[in-house]
């Protein structure tokens, strides 16, 4: 005896939700091979679901995404500080994060101030002073090492970042260098600044991140990189945590590049990205 339509109608919803027992699933599929009405019932349900999906499909704006990223970063810092102050981790992973932080601080201090090696004590009163270019570049290296997924993939959307970065975000096309744009995103840097990060692949094998930032609050002379004159323009280059870094300023806009390329190639790319004055 065949399953009546009414029984099948009661199962259609669960069938489309993919939650039917195998025996019921067979029942529905067998019935709908011969019953046009029940097939149409299924199609109608599918059509309405598609309509609901279209209705709900709303994307978070670039500015909101930047705000959220910012507040998550702030929460991460606050958690790490709370944990450091109390000596009790607030969440399981804090140990790893703090270890990474301490290691990074030690690495930094070793480079700059050998006499402070190993110090990772409580927050100092002047710790909220403006972040310097070196600190920002270190953040760029971190973001390059562990990139977040891009927010945009179309180069025409880049100007949308400008209100957050505060300077034009219009790097020159790097296609002549074999670079392919994967996408871009806004990243929070301290003091409520944002930088734009553009992710490229070069010749299909190298990953290159180009950052566009407002250099006014952070200065233009990174002490951890050394100056190199290319043409008549200085470009600062160096290696940080194994990555090749180059930074340059053109027409009041800061450009930095992080990659696994050599110093010369990085310097050339940084200059290539900066529009000619």
């Amino acid at each position: 005896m065949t399953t009546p339509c009414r029984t099948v109608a009661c199962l259609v919803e669960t069938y489309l939700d993919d939650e039917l027992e195998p025996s019921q699933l067979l029942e529905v599929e067998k019935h709908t091979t011969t019953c046009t009405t029940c097939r149409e019932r299924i199609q109608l349900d599918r059509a309405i679901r598609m309509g609901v999906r279209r209705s709900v499909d709303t994307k978070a704006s670039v500015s909101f995404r930047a705000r959220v990223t910012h507040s998550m970063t702030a929460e991460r810092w606050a958690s790490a500080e709370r944990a450091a102050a109390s000596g009790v981790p607030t969440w399981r992973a804090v140990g790893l994060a703090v270890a990474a932080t301490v290691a990074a601080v030690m690495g930094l201090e070793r480079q700059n101030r050998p006499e402070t090696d190993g110090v990772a004590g409580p927050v100092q009163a002047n710790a909220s002073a403006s972040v310097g270019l070196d600190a920002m570049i270190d953040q760029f290296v971190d973001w390059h090492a562990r990139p977040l997924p891009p927010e945009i993939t179309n180069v025409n959307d880049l100007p949308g970042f400008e209100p957050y970065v505060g300077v034009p975000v219009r790097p020159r096309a790097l296609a002549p260098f074999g670079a392919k744009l994967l996408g871009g995103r806004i990243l929070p840097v301290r003091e409520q600044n944002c930088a734009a990060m553009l992710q490229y692949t070069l010749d299909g094998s190298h990953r290159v991140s180009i950052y566009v930032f407002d250099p006014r609050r952070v200065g233009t002379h990174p002490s951890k990189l050394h100056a190199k004159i290319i043409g008549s323009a200085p470009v600062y280059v160096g290696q940080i945590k194994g990555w090749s870094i180059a930074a340059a300023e053109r027409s009041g806009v800061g450009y930095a590049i992080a990659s696994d390329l050599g110093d010369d190639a990085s310097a050339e790319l940084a200059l290539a990205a900066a529009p000619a004055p």
Partner: protein
Amino acid sequence: MSFFGKKRPSLPDAFEAQTLEHLDALYAVSCRLTKAPLDAEDLVQDTLVKAMRARGQYEPGTNLKAWLFKILHNTFINKYRRGGLERLVLEGPDADPLADGWVSAASMRALRDPESQALRPLVQEEIHKALDELPEEFRLAVVLSDVEELSYKEIAEVMGCPVGTVMSRLHRGRRLLQKRLYDHAVYLGIAPADDALSEEAGAVDIARYRARKRGHG
């Protein structure tokens, strides 16, 4: 001096990156819950900060999106306690008893493929309105199932109710949508008016449901 003072930030990790991958989904569901983009942004931001604080409670390997929706739902309930707004919707003009489910073949054909009749924007708008007017629990269940494709079990965890309740909310929510869409199709003249949804299969009395929700039923 150190460039970071002692506030050198820890790095964003996989948890944060994966959480941010669900931002659009959280925002979309939040928009449907709050019905106001600015409120939706605040709700998502609160949710993500709470998620960061509670990350130790997340069990790796389980559905992160469902876990985030649970925080979103709890935050929504605490922040926007169900009050006058929903009652207005619940007791408004659409609060008539709802038939449970039979649409004739002719109506189904008319409703199924509105694109071919150049009516998609009108029908789409109607679905949007109908969704907004669903009782909150129905709306959230339908969105989590139809849009976010969570299982009954995951929805039950998000909403803090038994699986049977989820199935009932889904069924009622979908039937309300279908009825609304059918009425609209009749209004637009693409479905015959005498082809009404039959009431033979146990009408869902929304008024009774609301009374029960308020503890009077």
